[in-house]
């Protein structure tokens, strides 16, 4: 396979990923107008956004082409920090339900 062939096939992959990301954005709008509300809706939206982010990081930012060391150095630590931020939710419910009358 020549260099040009290789590049055009990779560009084809990029266009497919571009289409997927746009389609997922459309899906988010459809989800927003369905009956689900509150936590259910937020979780569905987050799952779709994470799939979009995963596609973007792996294909647009080419992290899948880098050494696995880089992925292991960057992604788990970032996800860990973001997961640790979830400890704030209990306090936000306290504010909602236990505020002074």
């Amino acid at each position, binding site marked *: 396979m020549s260099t040009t062939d290789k590049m055009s096939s990779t560009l084809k992959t990029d266009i497919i990923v571009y289409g997927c990301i746009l389609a997922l954005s459309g899906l988010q709008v459809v989800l927003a107008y369905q009956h689900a509300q509150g936590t259910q809706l937020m979780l569905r939206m*987050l799952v779709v956004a994470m799939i979009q982010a995963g596609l973007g990081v792996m294909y647009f930012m080419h992290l899948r082409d880098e*050494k696995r060391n880089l992925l292991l150095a960057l992604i788990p630590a970032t996800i860990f920090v973001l997961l640790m931020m979830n400890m704030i939710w209990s306090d936000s419910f306290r504010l909602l339900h236990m505020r002074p009358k």
Partner: protein
Amino acid sequence: MSEAGLMMGGHVPGITEESPFAIPSKKLVMWLFIMSDAVTFGALLFAYGYVKNASPDWPEPFRFFPSIVNVMLMTFILVSSSLTMLVATRAAKAGNKASGIRWTFITVAGGILFALLHIREWLGLIREGVRLFQNPWGSPMFGATFFAITGLHLTHVIGGVIVLTVVALGYKRGRYNSGDIEIWSLYWHFVDLVWMFVVPMVYLLNISR
């Protein structure tokens, strides 16, 4: 190796080691910046969720037209600009300098269009009475959180437009190379990906029913 060789950054086994990631230092720095910036946006979105969760009268002001249609258009433009940036990077890497510069400027145009649409969205809300600490619909914190998150993102877009312009012009004059185009394309894709979280959290969870 001589002392002079060491001073010039020469590799000496046992003293310096090879990069474990096999990428240029500039690219590694960009990745580290992107990850720290992701945490910054994450913290802002968590803070937004906290305030929204704790407010019983959180406003839901976004109607399908014009707000959601505008957001869909902005999303299309930003994601498309990521694709044009990919084409620019690919062309620059292949040694096609003119094409790389042309596609980078098309990306810049997409960024400018996105920023203009975003500012139009802001002005619409401001005309409806939204301020940092007051609005006509409910919790006064809505304006502060909305403008903080979308404002930080808009700042990133405007910053990206400026940097991509500078890098493209520098690439044209030979000051920068295709590696620099590739490194700043990472930043641009990141700005695109952050928008994927801002849209559902800030707009789609607050649609007017």
